[in-house]
C-alpha cells in the first residue's frame, strides 16, 4: 500500500477494483499538489440466483478504503439503485458517517424534486415487490430463484437475511441526506460540477448517460405493468388462492387423460424421418414436452424487463486526466448506450445510415480504462462499441462466476464471448480472478487465470483488490 501511495504521489492515476463478490466497488485516486484525491464509484453486492454472490468481504473492504482515503472522498458516483451497486453504503453506515465527502453524483432518476420521476420509481418498486410476492408464492424452481435474485437486487430487501444487512432504501437515504452534501442528479447533456480539489488535480468529467427523462422509459413501465398484469392488484390473493392450485379453470368432471383423445391428435409429435412409425400410438409425452418448452414464465419476463429498466437508469461517466480516458458505464444496457453512441436524440431518416456518432467513436477508440458494464452480461456492452474500442486499454469486470444466468441459453454472467472479445482488445481483469486475504478472511481465486500485462501502465494485486496504475 505504501508503495502504491508513492506511485500516485509520483503522478500516476490509480483505479482500484475491490473484490466483494457480485457487485461494483471502485476507487479512483488522482494525484494532485495537495496529495491524492479519491473518487468512489459504487459500493454494493448481491447474492444473486445462486445465493453465492455475496462473499462477505464488503465490510472489510470499506474499512480498508476508509484507512486508505483517511475518511476523505472528493466525489462519490452512484450509477444506479441496484443492490449490487449501493447496498454497501447502508451496510457500512457507521463507517460512511465518518467520511468527509466533496460531492455526490447520481443519475437523474434519483431526483426527488420531479414528481413524475419519483412516482416512476415508486411504481417500479411496487412492480418489483409484487413480483417478489408472486415468485415466493409459486413453486420454487430455478426460474423463481432467479426472479427472486433480480427482485432482491432491485429492492434491496432480502427474503432471507444475508451477511451484514443494509438495504437500498437506507443506502439512498444515507447518500441523499446524511453525508453533508446535496447530490447532483445528472443525465446526458448536464455539466456536472466537479469539486475544486479534483479540478485542481486536472480531472475532467463528462456525463454520457442516462438519456434525459423521456417518455420512452415511461412507456416501458406501462408495458411492464401490462405484461405482468395478472400478478398485480392483489398480490396476497395470488399467494393464498393460486398457490393452493385454485386457479383451476374447470371442475374435476372435465379433467381427462391423453387416452381420451384419438391417437391422431398426437400424430404431429410422432418421430419423423424414421421408418415404421406407429401412428396408432399416442405420442402424448412428446406433445406435453413441446407445450411445456414453449410456455415461458411471464413472471420471469417481467423480472428481466424490470432489471433492464433500472440498469438503463445508469449514470455513465467519462473521466479524463492528462489525455487519459476512463469510462465507467454502470450497468447501462442497449437504450442507454444507443443514446450517446448513435446520436439517437434526433430521429433518424434511414436506419441503414445509422453509424456510430463521431463523439462515440472518438471516445471509444482512445479509451485507457473501461469498467465493463453490468458485470459482463450479454446485454450491456454493445458489440459495435467493442468493435470501436482501441487496443491498448485495461478493462475491469466485477463478477462472481455462476451467480446469474445459464450457459445453455446464453445468458450466463459474465458472457463468455463478450469477455473473449474484450480480452482480445484489452487487458481484462475479473474481480474473481485473484484471492482475498483481509481481516482474517481468506478466499481463493474463483477463476484460474493469470493477471495480464497491460500495454501501458501496470496491474498490481493487493489484499482484497486489484490496482491499475496509469
Amino acid at each position, binding site marked *: 500500500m505504501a508503495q502504491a501511495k508513492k506511485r500516485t504521489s509520483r503522478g500516476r492515476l490509480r483505479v482500484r477494483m475491490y473484490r466483494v463478490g457480485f457487485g461494483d466497488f471502485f476507487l479512483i485516486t488522482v494525484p494532485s499538489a495537495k496529495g491524492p484525491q479519491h473518487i468512489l464509484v459504487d459500493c454494493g453486492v448481491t447474492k444473486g440466483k445462486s445465493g453465492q454472490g455475496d462473499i462477505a468481504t464488503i465490510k472489510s473492504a470499506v474499512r480498508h478504503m476508509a484507512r486508505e482515503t483517511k475518511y476523505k472522498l472528493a466525489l462519490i458516483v452512484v450509477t444506479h439503485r441496484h443492490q449490487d451497486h449501493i447496498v454497501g453504503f447502508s451496510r457500512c453506515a457507521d463507517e460512511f458517517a465518518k467520511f468527509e465527502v466533496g460531492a455526490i453524483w447520481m443519475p437523474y432518476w434519483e431526483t426527488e424534486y420531479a414528481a413524475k420521476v419519483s412516482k416512476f420509481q415508486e411504481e417500479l418498486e411496487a412492480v418489483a415487490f409484487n413480483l417478489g410476492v408472486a415468485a415466493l408464492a409459486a413453486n420454487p424452481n430455478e426460474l423463481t430463484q432467479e426472479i427472486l435474485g433480480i427482485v432482491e437486487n432491485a429492492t434491496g430487501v432480502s427474503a432471507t437475511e444475508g451477511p451484514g444487512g443494509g438495504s437500498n432504501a437506507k443506502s439512498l437515504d444515507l447518500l441523499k441526506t446524511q453525508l453533508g452534501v446535496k447530490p447532483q442528479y445528472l443525465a446526458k447533456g448536464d455539466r456536472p460540477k466537479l469539486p475544486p480539489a479534483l479540478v485542481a488535480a486536472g480531472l475532467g468529467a463528462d456525463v454520457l448517460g442516462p438519456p434525459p427523462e423521456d417518455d420512452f422509459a415511461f412507456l416501458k413501465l406501462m*408495458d411492464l405493468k*401490462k*405484461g*405482468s*398484469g*395478472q400478478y398485480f*392488484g*392483489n398480490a396476497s*390473493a*395470488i399467494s393464498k388462492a*393460486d398457490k393452493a*392450485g385454485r*386457479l*383451476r*379453470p*374447470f*371442475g374435476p*368432471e*372435465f*379433467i*381427462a387423460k*391423453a387416452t*381420451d*383423445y*384419438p391417437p*391422431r*391428435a398426437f*400424430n*404431429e*409429435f410422432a418421430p*419423423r*424421418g424414421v421408418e415404421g412409425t406407429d*401412428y396408432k400410438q399416442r405420442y402424448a409425452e412428446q*406433445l*406435453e414436452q*413441446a*407445450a*411445456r*418448452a*414453449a*410456455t415461458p414464465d*411471464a413472471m420471469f*419476463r417481467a423480472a428481466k424487463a424490470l432489471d433492464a429498466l433500472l440498469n438503463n437508469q445508469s449514470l455513465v461517466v467519462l473521466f479524463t486526466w492528462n489525455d487519459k480516458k476512463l469510462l465507467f458505464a454502470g450497468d447501462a444496457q*442497449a437504450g442507454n448506450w444507443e443514446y450517446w453512441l448513435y446520436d439517437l436524440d434526433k*430521429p*433518424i*431518416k*434511414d*436506419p*441503414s*445510415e445509422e453509424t456510430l456518432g463521431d463523439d462515440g467513436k472518438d471516445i471509444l477508440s482512445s479509451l485507457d480504462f473501461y469498467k465493463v458494464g453490468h458485470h459482463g452480461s*450479454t446485454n450491456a456492452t*454493445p*458489440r*459495435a462499441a467493442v468493435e470501436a474500442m482501441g487496443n491498448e486499454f485495461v478493462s475491469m469486470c466485477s463478477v462472481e462466476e455462476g451467480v446469474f444466468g445459464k450457459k445453455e441459453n*446464453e445468458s450466463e454472467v459474465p*458472457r463468455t*464471448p*463478450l469477455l473473449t*472479445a474484450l480480452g482480445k482488445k484489452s487487458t481484462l481483469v475479473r474481480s474473481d480472478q485473484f484471492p482475498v486475504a483481509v481481516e482474517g478472511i481468506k478466499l481463493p481465486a474463483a477463476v484460474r487465470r493469470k493477471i495480464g500485462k497491460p500495454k501501458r501502465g501496470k496491474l498490481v494485486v493487493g489484499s482484497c483488490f486489484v490496482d491499475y496504475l496509469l
Partner: protein
Amino acid sequence: MSMSKTGAKKKTNKRKAKSLAPRMARASRAVVPTTSPAGALPVLTARLRSGAAAEIERPTVRPLKAYAFDPSQGRLLGNEMSIPVRYQDLEPGPVVRDPFAGNGVAVVDYDATHDVYYTPVDLDDPRVLIRGGFDPIESDPRFHQQMVYAVVTETIQHFEAALGRRIHWRRIPHEEVGREEANRQNIYTLTLFPHAMVDANAYYSPRAHGILFGYFRANESAQGRNLPGQLVYTCLSHDIVVHETTHAILDGIRRHFMEQTNPDVAAFHEGFADIVALFRHFSHSEVLLDTVQRTGGRLFDRSLAPAVQLEPGAAAAISNQIAPGNPLVELAQQFGEAQSRGHGLRSALETPPNSNDILTKFECHERGAILVAAIFDAYFTIYQRRTADLFRVYRAGGGNLSQDLPLSLAQMLATQASRTAALFFTVCVRALDYCPAIDITFGDYLRALITSDFDLHPTDEAGLRDALMQAFRVRGIVPDGADSFSDRAIAWPRATGLPPVLGLVFGDPNGLTRDEQDACKTALVAYVQSPAVRDALGLEPQLDVIIPSFHPVFRVEQDGSLRTDMVVQMFQNRPPPADGESEGTFPMRSGVTLVISKPPLSELRRRAIQGESVHVGYVRYVISKPLHGTAGEAREQRQRHHLQRIGLLDGTDPQRFEIDFAIAHGGL
C-alpha cells in the same frame, strides 16, 4: 368476411374475391361413399346402412356456435353467432381426420401449467350436432375447443378464398437446414392448445407446432366488464384467435418474415394479424348495423352515441347515457379491460396520421399499429366515397345526421361497409403473393398491394390504389426504389427480356400432384442455372439457389376470364465468414419472388401447332432483394444495426433471429 354475391353493384362485383379453389375442392368429392369411416356422422351413416338406396350428399358446412367478440359482450347484437365452418371429418378434440390435408388442425386441450388434459369435444355426437354445436358457455372447456376450431378453420377458409389456393403450415426446405432438421420443424397439423398456461398471453409457437392460448385472472380493480379477479380465457376472444391463426398462416406463406432483419418485419407480422382480425368485425351484420346507427354512419368514430342522449354539460345518471367504445375498431376488448386499460387491447386507428411515428416507434406492436392505421385510413376513405351519395340524398330529403338514421339507410351503409371490408381483406391477403421472399418492409408491402391490385383491376374505378397510397404517404411509409408516388411507379416493374420457363406445369386449383411438383421443381432449378437469368433475378452466380415454395394461383380477371399464375420464392444464403468465428455473425440472404403467368389459350395453340412444348410460363414480375450492389450493402448495414438495437447480434444460437411471439406478445 362476407363473401355473399347477391345484390352487388356491377362495379364492386368485379372486385370480389372469386376463388375457384374451395368450390372445386368441394365438387371433386361431392358424394360421401357408403363406406365412410365409422364414427363420422353416425346418424347419417346408420341410415345409409339401414338399406336406404339413395345416397345423401356430403354436407358442405358444419354450423358451429362461437362468440363474435368475446364473452364480455353478452348475448346482445349477435355476439353469440353461428359460423358455417367447412365440413371436415372430425375426431374428438376436434381433430381433422384427413392425414394429407396439409392445412389441418388438431385441438388438444393440454394444460402445461397444471399438467392435465381437459375432456375433448365430440362434435359428431348427435346431441351436439342437432343444436349446431355447444351453446356459448364459459364454464365448459368443450365449448372453448369448439370455438377455437371454428374460428381457426373459418380464418383458413377466408385466406384460401382470397388467395385462390390452399394454404399449408410452416415448411422448411431441406436444402437449407438438412433433412432431419427440416423434418423436425415442418408443421403438418397445427396443434391448438385452448388452455395451455396461466398467462395473459396467447401466441403462435413453431416450437410447439401450434398456438398456445393462456388464461388469467382479471385485475382486482378497474377490470371493465369483467368481475374482479374472474378468469379470462384468451381462446374465447374471436380477435385473438384470428390474430394468432394469421401468424401461423403467414409463416406458412413467407417463412423468412419471422426472421428479424429490419424493424418492419416483426411489426408487419403483428400489424397484418391485426388487420385480418379487424376486418372480420365488419362481417358481423348486427353489430355493424348498430354501429352505423349510433355513429350516424361515421364508422371510424372511437365511441358510439349513448343509447340515451345526455343534456349538454350533464353527468350520466344511468349506464345507457355513457358512450361505449366503437366495437368495430377495437381489438380484444375483454382482454384489454381485464388488464385495466379501460379499452380494448389495440385499435384500428391508434395513431393519428403523422410521418414521425415511423421514425421513432420500433416496438413491433406500436410500429405495426402504423400499418394498421394506414390500411384502415384507406378503407374508411373508400367507404366514405362509396356512401357519399347516400348521405347527400338523405340530407337533400331533409334528413338530419344527428338523429338516428332510418333503418333502410343504415342497412345500405352497413352493406357498403361490409362489402368494402371484404374487398380490402382480399386485396391485403392477395398482396402477400407479391411480397419479397425475405426482409419485408412496409414500403415493400405497399408496392405489393398496388401491384396485386393493378394486376387484376387495371382501371381502379373505386380509387382504391389512390386511397392506399395517400394513407401510406401521410404516415411516412415510402417504397424503396420507386421513382414517384403514382400507382405505376409504385407497382413493381414488369419483368422484361427474360426467357420463358420451360417445363412448367400449372396443375389445377386443388394443387399440384406429386409428379407435377417434381416437374415444376426440375423446370425451376434448370431455369436458374443460366447465369444471365440469375443476373436478371438478382441472384449470386456462385451460391446454391433454394426454392422453398411454388404454387399455382387461379383468379378471375376483370373480363371474367381465368388467370393462372405461379408464384415462386427463391433465396440464397451467404455463407458465414471463413475464419471460423461464427459468433456474432448473422444470416444474410438474397431472395426473389417470381410471378409467372400461364400463356393464354391462343398462344398455347400456336405453340402446339409449331411443335413447341405447351408447358411454359412467362415471368411477369421479379421482386428481388439482392445480396450485392449498393442495395445489398445498405440492407446488410440496416440488418446489422437492427440486430444491434434488439440485442441479437451476439450469440451462437442460429434460431435467435426468429421472432419469439411468446416474448414479443408479453401481454399480446
